[in-house]
């Protein structure tokens, strides 16, 4: 194992931890599918960044931020839940992204290629992960109260609209950090799947969030090790590892009726 792989594993673990942590709220908010599809929006942003010779993470970040503001606006302002619109809009951006992404980079943009992650990316990912983690911890209580009852939270004077926006922006941020590892097609799964698995095994919020982060780390680290050994794309392997964990958690839950 070379030094570079160590750095990759550490930065990957950080992305996995933050994804699992943010995903834990996503699942409770019943936004798993939105979270899953959100990552598709990163592709056109990455494509434009590649064409302009900029860091694709930056492009992904800008595209995701715009998409998140759109989703947030629709869910706060419109009477109907914007599920259908999200489906249409996210798929459209994926289609456009596939068309405009330069051919040599398309495959790795879609499925992730950890070998393209340099030390500069690593530093950005590590610093951003710490920032996102801190930010979510600060709004965690308000988010949770909003999940239990939006009315109760508002009656406490909590501005749920703002809290939801901050939260979704942070989700967009973490997806942008993870696209190089997991790729734009599957990064959303890294946010959602570890949290779903953790929910099967947890009887309290504390254990749920710790486990969500931990399973995110395990998915990325094992995924990276396997894909570097066999020279596979990292994205599908990371996601498959997380799915395997989910299946195990499901079996474990079934054999324990009062899951606490």
């Amino acid at each position, binding site marked *: 194992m070379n030094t570079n792989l160590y750095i990759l594993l550490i930065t990957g673990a950080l992305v996995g931890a933050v994804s699992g942590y943010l995903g834990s709220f996503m699942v*409770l908010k019943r936004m798993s599918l939105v979270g899953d599809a959100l990552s598709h929006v990163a592709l056109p942003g990455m494509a434009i960044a590649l064409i302009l010779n900029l860091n694709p993470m930056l492009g992904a970040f800008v595209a995701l931020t715009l998409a998140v503001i759109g989703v947030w606006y629709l869910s706060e302002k419109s009477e109907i839940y914007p599920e259908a619109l999200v489906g249409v809009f996210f798929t459209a951006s994926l289609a456009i992204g596939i068309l405009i992404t330069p051919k040599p980079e398309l495959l790795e943009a879609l499925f992730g290629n950890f070998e393209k992650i340099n030390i500069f990316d690593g530093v950005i990912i590590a610093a951003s992960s710490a920032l996102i983690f801190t930010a979510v911890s600060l709004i965690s*209580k308000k988010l*949770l*109260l909003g*999940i*239990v*009852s939006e*009315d*109760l939270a*508002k*009656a*406490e004077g909590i501005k749920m609209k703002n809290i939801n926006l901050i939260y979704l922006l942070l989700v967009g941020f973490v997806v942008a950090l993870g696209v190089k590892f997991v790729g734009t097609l599957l990064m959303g799964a890294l946010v959602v799947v570890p949290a779903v698995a953790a*929910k099967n095994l*947890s*009887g*309290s*919020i*504390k*254990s*749920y969030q710790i486990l969500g982060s931990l399973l995110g780390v395990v998915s990325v680290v094992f995924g990276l090790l396997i894909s570097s050994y066999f020279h596979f794309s990292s994205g599908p392997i990371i996601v498959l590892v997380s799915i395997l964990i989910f299946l195990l958690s499901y079996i474990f839950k079934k054999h324990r009726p009062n*899951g*606490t």
Partner: protein
Amino acid sequence: MILEVNNLTVKFGNQKVLDNVSFSVERDGTLAIIGPNGAGKSVLFRTILGLIPYEGEVKWAPNIKIGYVPQKLFVQKDLPLTVQEFLKLKEKGLTNIEKVLNSVGIKKTGILKTRLGDLSGGEIQRVLIANALLGSPQVLLFDEPTSGVDIAGEETIYALIERLKKKVDLTIIFISHELDIVYRHATDVLCLNKEKICFGKPREVIDKETLSKMYGEDVKVYRHHEHHEY
């Protein structure tokens, strides 16, 4: 006055859900809000809490702390959130949480580690009251559960509220479906059916006329039925 509401109108789209409602609540009073299903009782609650937009005036006494007990909690059955974690969203100190739980009649500490989704209807109700009390409110807004709350031989929620009122300065506004409860526990009553039907002391303002204005349909059905039998 702790609350004054003047000419309150709430519209959902073009439909008026509340129409020109005015009433007031005195400090330390107990106001009951009654009315048929769809009369706008819960909407009125959500309006005076500032949760939905309205026309008219809602004036609380300055710096008032409000505790809100919603009718129901729609939590997922497998939401991994324990009672302790839920109450800690509001109050850090565990001793205070245990004290408040005790005051709402929950004696067993085991409930702290129980998930919200595993509680019975009566337990949820008590935990919600505890949650409202944790902020040491001067006003308690209490949306009565329609049914399915088992209090199993213990004191009723209303006796509990009476007991709390004796200890601290507490103004109560509650929604009820039972006239009996209103007569026994309320100092004032607001009869609602989209608009204000009556407002005042229960024994003075609730009469046949106000009841038929609120529950008119039911009265007709009853008479028809009677007629049929004879």
